[in-house]
């Protein structure tokens, strides 16, 4: 580990600062490209990266993920998911990591997308897919609190067309 490399400070939406090792921070492509753009800056000053789209609570989780990923990289999650239990498709630490309430999970997805951290995006998106797997359309609606906005005719047509998956 390069002791010379200065840490990086990430500033959340609510103004909270998180100082992390450079290796951790550059897992975010957004952070990485922001830093390389400013490479001629004074090296003794810790660069501060504002992340106005990411709340503190979420940023904390992002950092937790990145730090862990460096020491124990996440296995690639196979598509399509074989099981609806995340523990069956990824290492236990990661399965536990995404055992969160829906709101936080979605914010994590948006943060991973914004900060461009592929493994985190993959993990969280796969988690959403695991929430869909095995459910009926009605159960899916309940899970995400969405309204059925089909007309009765549309709904019937779509259902008839998809009878093939009901026998599985």
């Amino acid at each position: 580990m390069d002791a010379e490399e200065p840490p990086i400070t990430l500033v959340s939406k609510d103004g909270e600062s998180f100082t992390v090792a450079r290796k951790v921070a550059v897992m975010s492509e957004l952070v990485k490209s922001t830093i390389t753009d400013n490479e001629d800056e004074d090296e003794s000053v810790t660069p501060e990266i504002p992340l106005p789209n990411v709340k503190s609570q979420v940023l904390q989780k992002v950092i937790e993920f990145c730090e862990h990923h460096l020491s124990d990289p996440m296995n690639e999650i196979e598509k399509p998911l074989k099981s609806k239990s995340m523990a069956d498709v990824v290492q236990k630490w990661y399965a536990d990591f995404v055992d969160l309430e829906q709101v936080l999970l979605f914010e994590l997805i948006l943060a991973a997308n914004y900060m461009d951290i592929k493994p985190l995006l993959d993990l969280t998106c796969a988690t959403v897919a695991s929430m869909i797997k095995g459910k009926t359309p009605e159960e899916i609606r309940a899970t995400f609190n969405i309204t059925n906005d089909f007309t009765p005719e549309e709904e019937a047509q779509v259902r008839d067309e998809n009878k093939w998956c009901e026998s599985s």
Partner: protein
Amino acid sequence: MPTITSLHCSSETMECSSVSKSPMKKARFSNASIATKKKRKAFVSSTDFCTIQPHLYGVLPSGNRLFDQAAAESKDFSSPNQLLSDECWYNALEYCDGASLARVGQSCKYFYVVSHEPSLWRDLVLRINQVITKAGPTWKDCYVGMQNQKHFVLHKPLRVRGIYSDYLHRLHACRSFSIPQQWLEQNDSENLNNALIDRVHYKSMTIERFEREYEAKNRPVVIQGGCKSWRAFKRWTDQDYLLQKTNGRTFRATSGTAPLSANFTFQAYQEYCRSESLEEGPVYLFDRTALQPRSVLWKDYMLDLQRDCPYWDPERTDTTHDLFKVLGEGRRPDHTWLICGPRRSGSVFHIDPNATHAWNATIVGRKRWIFYPPGVTPPGVMPSDDGDEVTLPLSLGEWLLQFYDEHVKRLTNAPLDKRPIEFTAFPGDVVFVPHGYWHLVINLDETNIAVTHNYCSGSNLSSVLKFIRERNDQVSGCRDRPESIKPEHLYDEFVDELKKKYPKLIDEALQNDAWACDAWRDKVVEVGENENNGLNIVGAEQLGSKSIMTNAKEDAAFTFGFSL
């Protein structure tokens, strides 16, 4: 009657009134053209690629939401895209199996639309990893057909209202881009985007002329009628003939946008081409075994090629054509392909492997070609700092919509030696692709069939040797066959065999240590006003593009080996 037509882009005619279907585009008239009633010439521009086809499931660009009173008035309505962006939902659905996709698609209109993205079903089919015997009108039908024959009902796309998404509409625009009428027609003088390609009738092209004017100078040319008299030209338009001669074999088809390759029976692949299923980057059949020497299909073209294009006859002893033949058929790198693809399939910018030249015979269907000279990076192509990787949009539609206008600037403004070339190859034409040239090809008709050979001759021998020697990790076409010479031994064996059969030639070539061709020199010549190569944004991820690794991939029929 044999003619030579060299087309030069007139830089005086800077009038750019485009034949556009978009009502928003203003036509600009010059006083001169009104006064003299000159027929107005038109440049094709990116607006010409704007699709006129509506989205199959009714998606409209987001601005349309402003016109939707019902959407504005609804309050209690809860839609998934309020929770996550379209792109994130798409990423999540990529992890769903078929049944899950089918069920989530029944939950609401939004999920109905997203879950029917063709690439989702295509990827599910590819991951089953079985031979596709029935292509189905859509990838979803193909998938369902492979699952459960009992309840099979053909998918009938439902156009729903109220779904507004730029992300989804962009995917649609990229995969169903319009093909400009000018590309389909033969009037070169009218079509200003047709720039700088020589067209020589095959009867006017002698070995001596080809070697002197084109190979030695590394200049592309279209040999008009070069394959028109081939048996293949007459026979291969008959789909049944090809079906018969390929004898139940399976074929691998790939796409820059697909995670895996697909395996089709020939019949299924023909069905696939006809279905026009419209996905971004259709799978493209690149087969290297259909044209084995002495096979029926090989005889359909090789014997006539020897007569009509003698400079490409591998059996001649008075030319230095096809030097890799000294290694023997199984041991030499891949060099012969049967290429078959549907409309809008093709290849994004690449340089052919191993510093080889190539000829490409247009047997069925028209192709649009764009060339950039060696060392001149095309718009939208971004080499990494070390030159080892290149990032560019993997779909033709994306490149056309985003970078074609920058390309037109180069067509009109760049100095001649750095100017790109663009033209249409018609059935019967054979295109010479000189080594080191960037090229992009788009298939224009329902079914497009071509034969291509890559080769090394005296004219590019020193480049080929240098490439194999110094870019050994980028050498391709010899990694996934057990009998082929492995890259690490290729140079020595090639040189050894050449010394036996072409001693003078190899000695001369070995004396030349510098790169003769700009394609692989370290310094890249950039053309164009914009430092970012026509890009206003930083970061490949915003383009929706990915890196193409220059190392050979196991399941690719061939790889694009290039470095800058």
